[in-house]
C-alpha cells in the first residue's frame, strides 16, 4: 500500500518539459530517496507534490486523495510537510516562533479570540507552544529557543527547519537536500534523526540528496530521475548496479555517482 502516488505527472515551463509523465510512489512507512543529476527535475517534482507548481497533466494522490488542484497550504493540511533546499527560516523571529508556525493549520483561534484572550485561545497557545517545544527537543535542540533563528549555526538551522516541518504533524515528510552543507559528524546525526522520525513518529520520509553514501545507507527505496524522466526504481543495491543510472550519472561531468 503506497502513501503517495504519482501517475503520469508532466510539467513544462514556457514550452520546455521539466517532468515527463513521471510515475512514482512512496510506500507507507518507508524512507525513500529521490536522486538524479543536477537539473533532473527533483526539486520541481517536490514542488509539484507540495502544490507550489501546477503540473499540466497527471495525478498526485496522498492516501487516495487527489491533490493536483490543491494549494500548498492545503497540501500541508492533508499531511505533507517539507523543508527547502536552502534553509528558509523566518527572519527576525525566534527559534520557537519558527517552529510554532507548523501548528497554524492545526489550530483555529481568530481575531476575536485573540483580542478577548478567550480561554480556548489561551489553551490553544499553550498547546502550540508545547508541541513546538516537543519538536525542538526531538531534533535535539534543547536551548536557545528564544534566539533569532537565522543567527543560529547552519547545522542547527537545518534541524530547526525539520522541527518546524514536524510541528505540522505530517504523515509524509519531504526533505530537500537535508545534508547539504553539513559536517560529517552532523551527517551522522542527521541519519540518526531521520530514522527516529520514521521509527518513533511513524512518518514516511522522501528525500532528495546528492550525498549518495548517505542515500545508500539510509534509504529503503531509491528512485532515479534524469531529464524529467523516472529511469529507475528499486532498492539501493539494485540502483547501484543499474546500467541506465550509471550512464545517466557518467553523462554528467563532475557529478559522478560515487558508488
Amino acid at each position: 500500500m503506497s502513501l503517495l502516488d504519482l501517475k503520469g505527472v508532466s510539467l513544462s515551463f514556457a514550452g520546455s518539459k521539466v517532468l515527463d509523465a513521471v510515475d512514482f510512489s512512496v510506500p507507507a512507512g518507508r524512507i525513500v530517496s529521490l536522486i538524479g543529476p543536477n537539473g533532473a527535475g527533483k526539486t520541481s517534482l517536490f514542488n509539484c507534490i507540495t502544490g507550489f507548481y501546477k503540473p499540466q497533466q497527471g495525478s498526485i494522490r496522498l492516501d487516495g486523495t487527489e491533490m493536483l488542484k490543491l494549494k500548498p497550504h492545503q497540501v500541508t493540511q492533508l499531511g505533507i510537510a517539507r523543508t527547502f533546499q536552502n534553509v528558509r527560516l523566518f527572519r527576525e523571529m525566534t527559534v520557537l516562533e519558527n517552529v510554532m508556525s507548523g501548528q497554524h493549520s492545526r489550530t483555529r483561534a481568530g481575531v476575536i479570540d485573540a483580542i478577548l484572550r478567550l480561554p480556548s485561545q489561551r489553551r490553544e497557545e499553550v498547546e502550540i507552544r508545547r508541541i513546538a517545544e516537543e519538536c525542538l527537543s526531538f531534533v535535539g535542540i534543547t536551548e536557545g529557543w528564544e534566539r533569532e533563528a537565522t543567527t543560529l549555526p547552519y547545522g542547527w538551522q537545518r534541524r530547526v527547519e525539520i522541527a518546524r516541518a514536524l510541528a505540522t504533524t505530517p504523515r509524509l515528510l519531504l526533505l530537500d537536500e537535508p545534508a547539504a552543507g553539513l559536517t560529517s559528524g552532523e551527517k551522522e546525526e542527521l541519519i540518526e534523526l531521520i530514522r527516529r522520525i520514521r521509527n518513533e513518529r511513524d512518518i514516511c520520509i522522501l528525500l532528495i540528496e546528492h550525498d549518495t553514501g548517505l542515500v545508500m545507507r539510509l534509504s529503503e527505496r531509491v528512485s532515479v530521475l534524469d531529464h524529467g524522466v523516472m529511469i529507475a526504481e528499486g532498492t539501493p543495491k539494485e540502483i547501484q548496479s543499474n546500467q541506465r543510472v550509471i550512464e545517466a550519472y557518467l553523462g554528467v561531468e563532475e557529478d559522478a555517482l560515487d558508488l
Partner: protein
Amino acid sequence: MAQFPERPSAWGGLATLLDTPQKRYAAIAVILVAMAVAPYIFGSYGTVILTNALLYVLLALGLNIVVGYAGLLDLGFAAFFAVGAYTVGITTLHFGLNFWLALPLAVLLAIVAGIVIGAPTLRLRSDYLAIVTLGFGEIVRITARNLRETGGASGLIGIDSPWLFGWHIRTPLDFYYVFCALAILGVIASVRLANSRLGRAWLYVRHDEDAAEAMGINRVKVKLAAYVVGAIYGSIGGAFFAANLGAISPESFSFRQSVLILMAVILGGMGKIPGVILGAFIVILAPELLRDFGDLRLLIFAVGLLLIMLFRPSGIWPARSKR
C-alpha cells in the same frame, strides 16, 4: 554558545527595559496619570490637539497591522476612516439611529468594504494592493463628494454627540477622555493580536510567503484578516471622529489623510507599538511646532519620510534594546 541578539518585538525593546512587573506597573501608572492630567496642563487648545493625536494613534495602530505586521502597503486607509464617519453621520442624521447602534454598523460596513477590496487584490503581487487601495480611497472620496446623502462637497453637519450611561459626551474634554480610552483599547488589541496565532502568521507571510504556505498557512486569508482588522480600526476612528466634530466633509478623507496616517506608522517605526504612537504624535504635533513654515510643512514631512526610508528604515524608535 555566544550571546545572540534579542529579536525585535511589538514592544520595540520596551519589554527588556521594563523587565519586572513592578517596573511595568509603574510605567503604566505614570502614563495613565499623565493622560489624565494632560488637559489641565496644556489648556483647552492643547486638549483639542491631544485628542487629534490620540485619534491618529488609533488610526496608525490600525494601519500598522496592515503595513507593520502583514507588510502590505495600503495607500487608501482614509477610505475606512470615511466609511466609519459617514455611516455614523448618515444613519444618525437621516435615520435617527443611536450612535451606539451606528457604530457596529460602521464596523460591519468596513469589514464588507475590506473584503470586497482585499479579497481579489491580495491574491496578486503585493504592490498591486498599494495602487488598488489608492484607487479605492479616491472612489470613496469622490462618491462622498457627489452623493446627496453624504452632503456633497460641503459634507454633513449637526451630527449628534453620543450619550453613554447618562453621560453626554460633548465637551472637548469629554472627547479627550473617550479617545484616551480608544487609544488604550487599540493598544491592548494590537498587542494581543501581535502575540497570537494570527499575529505570528502575519510575520511568517511577510518574511517568506512560500515557507509560510509550506507550513499550512493560507496566505490570502491571513493577509485579508490583517487588512480587515485595519479597516475596523479605521472605521471606529472615523465614527468617533464624526461624533466629536459633529461635522464631516470629503476633504477629511483625501489621499493626503491616508499619507499622513502612513507617515505616522513609518516615521516612528513600523510594527512597533511605541514607535507607532510616537509617529502619530510627531505627525500631529510637528505641524503645530512648524506653524510658521506654512506649505513647507508637508515638504519637510516628505523629505523626512524619504530620509527615514534611505537611512533608518526601521523608524525613529530603536529597533532593539541594547543590553
